[in-house]
């Protein structure tokens, strides 16, 4: 009797199972998703997914369609794509600059966060221009665009040319009142360029862009000292060359430690950011005896660095945003004072007193004297 029941049971399993089966060849993976606004402020979604058929000459399917939401756009895609569109492997979400300039565009990403099948490690990228232009770009000398694009961003991030913000990072920054988000910025002219980092406001609206050198400074201020930091400075004390930049020198860091101190004095937040760098000289186009004059060079670097950082902080304060995350320090150490200003942290930070001091030690000069 028991065995009979068992046989019946397994029969049920067979007949009713495999409802969720979707073979790999029946799937069209959206690897890139683009969001744009047209002239009349209508949303335009674009998708790129790989094609696996050997007969196909082009290995990418791209479809650009107007839709109300991202989920609706998927249905649009299914009308034309060979297989069923799924979002489990989104590599990058490209958002046009025009979209980002509006508050609340983050809501559009909601479906990616809700469905557990979707991944949240896709990179968020702002496109200076139209996202669909990037998505329909088919470079001949590069691998598939999704692979190329992600590789480009990841390696640029290693050199700290730009930031790398995944959907998860963006989500975290938007829900946290003590920090504002920043995303990678790219641009398409004849080819793709990573242009730096775009800083966003409290509600995701685009504020201003950072060049690669500024991005490095931001990284340092954020205590995020992973990857390579290399700077090229000009020495003001050296004679300027005629054609060649005789005053230039470059260095990269071999270790950075950052300490942020928080205080609340006379109704104002006060932050002291101490940066300690060990640098290795990688290039020097003028004459200098580093054995004797290291101190001098160190001081020069310190001054230049401090100057640049102050400029960056000033920019940030005028934009009333906080990409550095000083709000987190304020909450952790001055909770009493932070709580009332929690909702308008950007403005509070604008009034706050932020001091930067840089200490540089030249740790090495390479193999030539």
């Amino acid at each position, binding site marked *: 009797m028991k065995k009979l029941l068992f046989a019946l*049971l397994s029969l*049920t*399993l067979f007949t*009713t*199972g495999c*409802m*969720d089966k979707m073979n790999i060849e029946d799937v069209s993976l959206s690897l890139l998703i683009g969001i744009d606004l047209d002239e009349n402020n209508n949303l335009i979604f674009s998708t790129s997914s790989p094609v696996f058929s050997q007969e196909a000459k082009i290995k990418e399917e791209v479809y650009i369609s107007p839709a109300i939401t991202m989920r609706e756009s998927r249905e649009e895609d299914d009308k034309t794509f060979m297989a069923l569109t799924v979002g*489990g*492997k989104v590599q990058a979400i490209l958002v046009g600059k025009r979209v980002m300039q509006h508050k609340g565009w983050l809501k559009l990403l909601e479906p990616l966060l809700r469905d*557990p*099948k979707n*991944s*949240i*490690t896709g990179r968020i990228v702002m496109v200076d221009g139209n996202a669909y232009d990037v998505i329909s770009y088919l470079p001949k000398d590069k691998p598939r665009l999704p692979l190329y694009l992600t590789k480009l961003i990841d390696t640029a991030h290693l050199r700290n040319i730009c930031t790398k913000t*995944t959907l*998860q*990072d963006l*989500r*975290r920054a938007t*829900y*946290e*009142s*003590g*920090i504002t988000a920043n995303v990678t910025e790219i641009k398409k002219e004849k080819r793709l360029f990573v242009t730096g980092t775009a800083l966003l406001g409290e509600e995701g609206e685009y504020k201003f862009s950072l060049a690669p050198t500024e991005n490095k400074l931001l990284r340092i201020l954020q205590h995020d000292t992973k990857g390579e930091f290399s700077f090229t400075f000009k020495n003001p004390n050296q004679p300027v060359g005629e054609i060649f930049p005789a005053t230039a020198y470059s260095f990269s860091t071999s270790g950075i430690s950052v300490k942020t101190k928080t205080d609340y004095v006379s109704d104002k937040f006060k932050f002291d950011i101490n940066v300690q760098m060990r640098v290795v000289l990688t290039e020097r186009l003028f004459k200098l005896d580093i054995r004797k004059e290291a101190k001098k060079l160190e001081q020069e670097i310190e001054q230049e660095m401090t100057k640049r950082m102050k400029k960056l902080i000033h920019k940030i304060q005028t934009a009333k945003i906080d990409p550095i*995350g000083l709000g*987190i*320090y304020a*909450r*952790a*150490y001055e*909770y009493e004072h932070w709580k009332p200003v929690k909702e308008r942290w950007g403005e509070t930070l604008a009034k706050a007193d932020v001091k930067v001091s840089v200490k540089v030690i030249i740790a090495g000069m390479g193999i030539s004297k």
Partner: protein
Amino acid sequence: MSKYAMNGITLMQYIILIHASQVGTGIFSLPRQLAETSGTDGWMTVLLAWIINCLAGWIMLLTLRKYPDFTLLDLLSHLFGKWLGKLLALPLIIYFASFGLVIMVNSMLYIKSWFLTKTPAYLVVLLFAIPSYLVVRNGLRVQARYIELVFYMTMWMPLFMLIPVGEGNTLFLLPFLKEGWLPVLQGLQKTVFAYAGFEILFIIYPFLQKKKYAIHGFLIGNTLTLLYYLFITIVCFIFYTPDGITTLNQPVLSLLKNIEFRFLERFDMIFLAIYLLVVSKAWIIYISCAVFSTAQIFKKQDHSIFSGIYFLFAVASVYVMNPTWNQSEEWTKLLSKAAFGVMYMFPVVLYIYVRGFEMLRRGKTG
């Protein structure tokens, strides 16, 4: 030699049984629930709850120590007479049975939303029922073996939680006690479901081979759970911002989504699939407690028929009710209340009654 010695369990198995019955599906949403009431101080709530649980378990063992060979039913029959004892055991059996069912339903919901969206719910429960039945129909010794084996096999799993910690910020935890002690205490009720499980002591205590270490074993098991919960709560609090964590239903699973290897992406799916083994420990021990006690009521040695009936009933009830997330949350709340009674009130009442019972008896004889 007692009648349960044949099926005796070692101290290690006893420890793991207690730990296993506590760690189930509650853990996925625990950090969020704690953050909702106690903010980032939620981890202190976990610590506080642990102290309370240790006390409750100690009181339970104080009672049980007097009757080392009695299971719950034996004890109740001894104290209240045959029929009243059985009647009193009935709600407890229902409690165990429904606890097992709710854990299964919870896991089913997870599996359904992560993996098998279109597969009918009863089929998923049926899948759970097959291996569970194979374990539950045997004696407690076999269940202890299964649970022990699974425990050792899945010990590595929390370690993977450490990978995303690097992206977190310990500053999120500061300042401690930002809103004072009140929210920390308010969070206590949220931990009941997560910590529930050591009430299985009533059933497994007579099987323990070395009774003198019962209290030590219980403390170790409970501490193991504490460490597990504390670790996961703190990791979640560090990774997510204090405001962001409350927007996620299951912060633990969302956390795991961030883990990617060169050879494996979407680690949360692998984790959740393997975590099914961990959760199976919890429901197996609850169901076997229920089934074992039922068999005792009917004075049957072999409880395999009852376990078969139980699983058939479980599949049928899921087929009929087709539970949703909201329903399951309701049930969980209801069970938390019941667990509160079983874990904290019942042992105290029982202990006082036993003291009175003994005194009365001594008065009669002496």
